[in-house]
């Protein structure tokens, strides 16, 4: 009895190391008389555990991307709006975790209705224990979309309106498109579209699901909220420098680190034999994107541009996100190089042609490069069962244009169009309504004084002497 009680108490203690020691001992000692069936069961458990660890850790790394986004955004904007941007990003993940728990998961992975939307498991009801690991990994992705929008609309958007938008992004906009692509029952991987083309849409880790949705929602927001005061003078863009390149670069490197979780974790299987290639492709594209923008800006202006070069790495990462599990390493380099061109041209196109004010380049980085990533699958995918991806479970089914396939490219175009239409139009409607109801933009006076003092009562660096514009 005494002993029993002790044992029980031992089990109660959260971190019983003596017990752990004993367990470790036991594990090391040969276990007698295990049957092959028992062994097989144990092996299956270990395989599951490996996937759990992989997804938890990858999810953690993706979580840290919220710090990366915060830093990139504040680094490339002005001091006077820094606190506001920090709060927006901080509340994006804070709200995100609760909203994705209450609603987002249900809409994304609940029982399918017509290939369009999930309709059960609200508040994770009926969730059995095994689902939480997946929920965690999906949740950290969900809040990312809103963060992208936050960057593009920075320095003039109402905090309250943004928070409401964030709830809708995590609870509706993102999970609906996610349902189409990743639920297995959505219109882009089953049903009439797929039957017609003959192959399903492929977006490995979210060039469209996360990045294009974020980027094209941002486009709608930026259009509606208008440019920052002083951004265009007589129709010509005016330079508004950011306030901290160290934070912008730290943020970019944290984001790149995050992509190990983003793309690596999207194998969804800790036993996957292709993780190494997925990661190699990811970083080859990242490096190539940065190199390309470095060279372009060096040639164009005589000076390699820091913040655009940082954008270049992110563009490479965004682009390869769809295709990293489907292409050869040389193709990853090419995809990254082209992403570098796209982000440079995209930023210039937005400023000079569309007269859009996107302080951090989010539309070009996430929207345009994301679209390139989706197309890159249809161009460079080796196709299932071929070559290096012989037995990869998740690679794009069809071969790309370069390998003589055309179906994969076709379905990618369809998905790309759907992503743009969905993200842009739903966000446009929501922002319109928010503008009518509570005002999307802060008063001119607040914008001039800075959102930090006006919305939060405090500046970001109260003791530093700042040069006024």
């Amino acid at each position, binding site marked *: 009895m005494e002993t029993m009680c002790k044992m029980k108490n031992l089990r109660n203690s959260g971190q019983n190391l003596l017990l752990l020691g004993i367990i470790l001992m036991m594990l090391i000692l040969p276990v007698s008389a295990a049957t092959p069936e028992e062994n097989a069961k144990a092996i299956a458990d270990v395989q599951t555990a490996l996937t759990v660890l992989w997804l938890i850790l990858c999810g953690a790394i993706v979580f840290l991307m919220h710090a990366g986004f915060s830093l990139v955004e504040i680094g490339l904007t002005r001091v006077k709006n820094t606190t506001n941007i920090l709060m927006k990003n901080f509340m994006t993940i804070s709200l995100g975790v609760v909203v994705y728990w209450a609603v987002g998961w249900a809409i994304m992975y609940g029982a399918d209705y017509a290939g369009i939307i999930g309709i059960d498991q609200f508040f994770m009801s009926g969730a059995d224990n095994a689902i939480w690991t997946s929920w965690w990994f999906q949740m950290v992705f969900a809040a990312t979309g809103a963060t992208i929008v936050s960057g593009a609309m920075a320095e003039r958007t109402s905090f309250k309106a943004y928070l409401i938008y964030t709830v809708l992004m995590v609870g509706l906009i993102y999970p609906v498109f996610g349902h189409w692509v990743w639920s297995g029952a959505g219109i882009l991987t089953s049903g009439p579209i797929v039957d017609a083309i003959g192959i399903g849409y492929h977006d490995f880790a979210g060039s469209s699901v996360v990045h294009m949705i974020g980027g094209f929602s941002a486009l709608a927001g930026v259009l509606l909220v208008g440019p920052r005061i002083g951004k265009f003078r007589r129709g010509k863009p005016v330079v508004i420098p950011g306030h901290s390149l160290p934070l912008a670069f730290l943020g970019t490197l944290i984001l790149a680190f995050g992509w190990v979780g983003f793309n690596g974790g999207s194998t969804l299987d800790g036993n996957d034999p292709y993780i190494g290639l997925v990661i190699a492709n990811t970083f080859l594209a990242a490096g190539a994107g940065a190199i390309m923008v470095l060279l372009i800006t060096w040639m164009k202006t005589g000076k390699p541009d820091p913040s655009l070069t940082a954008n270049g790495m992110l563009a490479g990462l965004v682009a390869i996100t769809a295709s990293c599990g489907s292409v050869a390493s040389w193709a990853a380099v090419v995809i990254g190089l082209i992403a570098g061109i796209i982000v440079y041209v995209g930023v210039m196109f937005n400023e000079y042609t569309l007269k859009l004010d996107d302080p951090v380049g989010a539309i070009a980085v996430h929207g345009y490069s994301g679209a390139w990533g989706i197309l890159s699958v249809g161009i460079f995918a080796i196709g299932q069962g071929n070559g290096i991806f012989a037995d990869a479970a998740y690679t794009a089914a069809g071969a790309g244009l370069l390998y003589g396939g055309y179906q994969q490219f076709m379905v990618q175009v369809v998905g790309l169009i759907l992503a743009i239409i969905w993200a842009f139009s739903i966000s446009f409607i929501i922002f319109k309504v928010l503008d009518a109801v509570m005002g999307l933009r802060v008063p001119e006076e607040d914008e*001039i004084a800075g959102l930090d003092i006006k919305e939060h*009562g405090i500046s970001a660096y109260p003791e530093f002497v*700042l040069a*006024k*514009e």
Partner: protein
Amino acid sequence: MRKIEAIIRPTKVQEVKDALEDAGFESMTITEVKGRGKQKGVLQQWRGQKYCVDLLPKVKIELVVPVEKTDAVIEIIMKHAKTGSIGDGKIFIYPVEKIIRIRTGETDGDAL
């Protein structure tokens, strides 16, 4: 010669500067200062508690000009720094005894 010292709103610096330049007054020196006057401070807040920052950021523009141009400069600053609300700032005029341009050694009128 006179020194014209104007304490103005940070948000008006660009406009005043441009206007002075257009009128041919290119030379000036600018300092970040903090000031207090009729304008009460701003209420800020930290960890849920309000506190008053009674020194507001202002910008000091200094121009040394020949006596006869003083009024023209004052007029330009008055026009472009004014919002009509408390806190627009003030202009102070001081006598200057001598001016030397370091580069050339020119003095007074020639140094401007």
